[in-house]
């Protein structure tokens, strides 16, 4: 073993990632005995950034979550019925297939299907899965965190009336003011106050969930396309419900465009309308997911090295890997803020451009 001095030093940092690492540390060993297969980094990463019906903090340390499905009526049961199903064979576990014959459902790669006549998953049938998955649980957790934080901040304003802010109020006030004065006000203009509650909630929701995603064992909520889709759709709806005549007129007849070009310009403008929320959706999803993938890939290097070199190779490379991982984590902290900021800024700008008054008077056309 390479028990170097450096190793013990970095062991402190390693603690931060132990919850992550332990989970995979077991897996390859397990695989090794079972099927002589190599550690599959792709599968490991996908497993960690995808949603799940249980909240796994570390290998073997997981909380079952409620499964809620709509299949000719609402059915609610614990996800442990799948993960600890008596009907799941060892091979089923390897393939992430968890049938439960008593319930008549099978959880296959985190999708719920009814068990067909042949005893396999009936993938034709549509079961609507409204389960409190890991992401939904994280969503609820973040909502509670946000409510607790901001009601206590709000209380600070009545408690410290006419006095300097204190505690968490003084920490968050500059950020709230930054969003209000540097992002929303310049982008939207004088009517900014109507949109402020949504934009502030948006910013802090994304930021807090980005940060929760960085906590080892946390869910990859803002890196989930469903979440960013909803945010983008709400932005789209707000932009188009507050849009004035000028905005829609501009879509049909862009100013200063020759008539001959209109057949090209109108489709471009209309694509642009949908491209804006689409880019919002993809940007947040891709940035956060990419960050998670990079960190997981770096950590996966330890196990790849272990598979290649055997013995203590994994331990040997871990100090270096941990430095990189730590570095990436710090960058991800920045990205967490940055992406929340960008989403809020772009949403403000889209709202601002939709309620903007006509410029034509200024140009003197």
């Amino acid at each position: 073993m390479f028990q170097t001095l450096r190793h013990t030093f970095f062991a402190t940092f390693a603690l931060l990632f132990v919850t992550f690492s332990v989970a995979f540390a077991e897996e390859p060993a397990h695989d090794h005995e079972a099927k002589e297969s190599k550690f599959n980094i792709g599968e490991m990463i996908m497993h960690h950034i995808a949603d799940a019906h249980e909240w796994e903090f570390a290998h073997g340390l997981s909380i079952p979550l409620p499964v809620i499905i709509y299949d000719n009526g609402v059915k609610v049961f614990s996800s442990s019925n799948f993960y600890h199903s008596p009907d799941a064979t060892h091979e089923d576990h390897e393939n992430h297939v968890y049938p439960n014959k008593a319930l008549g459902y099978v959880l296959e790669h985190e999708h719920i299907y009814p068990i067909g006549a042949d005893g396999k998953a009936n993938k034709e049938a549509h079961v609507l899965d409204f389960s409190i998955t890991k992401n939904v649980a994280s969503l609820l957790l973040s909502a509670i965190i946000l409510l607790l934080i901001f009601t206590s901040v709000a209380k600070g304003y009545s408690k410290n009336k006419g006095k300097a802010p204190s505690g968490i109020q003084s920490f968050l006030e500059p950020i709230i003011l930054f969003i209000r004065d540097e992002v929303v006000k310049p982008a939207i203009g004088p009517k900014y106050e109507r949109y402020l509650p949504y934009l502030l909630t948006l910013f802090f929701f994304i930021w807090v969930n980005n940060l929760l995603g960085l906590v080892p064992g946390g869910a990859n909520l803002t890196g989930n396309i469903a979440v960013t889709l909803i945010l983008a759709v709400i932005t789209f709806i707000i932009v188009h419900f507050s849009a004035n005549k000028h905005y829609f007129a501009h879509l049909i007849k862009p100013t200063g465009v020759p008539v001959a070009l209109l057949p090209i310009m109108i489709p471009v403008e209309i694509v642009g309308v949908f491209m804006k929320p689409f880019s919002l959706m993809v940007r947040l999803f891709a940035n956060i997911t990419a960050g998670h993938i990079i960190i997981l890939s770096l950590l996966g290097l330890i196990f790849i090295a272990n598979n290649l070199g055997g013995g203590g190779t994994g331990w040997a490379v871990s100090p270096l890997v941990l430095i990189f991982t730590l570095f990436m984590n710090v960058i991800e902290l920045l990205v967490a803020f940055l992406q929340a900021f960008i989403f809020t800024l772009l949403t403000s700008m889209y709202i601002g451009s939709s309620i903007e008054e006509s410029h034509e008077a200024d140009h003197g056309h």
Partner: protein
Amino acid sequence: MELLTPAIGLLFWMLVVFVILVVILRVAAWKPIMNGLKEREHQIQSALDLAEKTRADMAKLQSDNEKLLAQARAERDSILKSAKESADRLIAEAKDRAGIEGKRIIEDAREAINNERVAIVAQMKKEIVTISLDIAEKVLRKELGDKTSQEKLVADLAKEARLN
């Protein structure tokens, strides 16, 4: 791909939770926070305005004070000046009057002295005449007892008369 297909359950929960979150935070957090911030900004602004106003008032007060002071100084100067003038005038008048009075007194004194002298001279003349006559009588009586003496007297008188 799995990652790019949004799950119906998460879409549903996300929509519900996020909309509720916006609604609750709007009432329970953003409204009081924004009101608190606005109130504080208002307070700071009004405090600044008040300070500015107070400073302007102070400046005005100071300039008023200076003006008053200058006015008081000017008044004092003019009072002093007029006082001095009147004092000078009084002194000059007094001097004039004293001069005139003095002259008059001197004139009177001179006149009185003159009168006195004239009277005294007259008196003296009269007495001298009387005394002279007495002396002359006595001398004559004594001297003119003999002839030589008479002659001598005449001669002396003549001499005297020439001297006078």
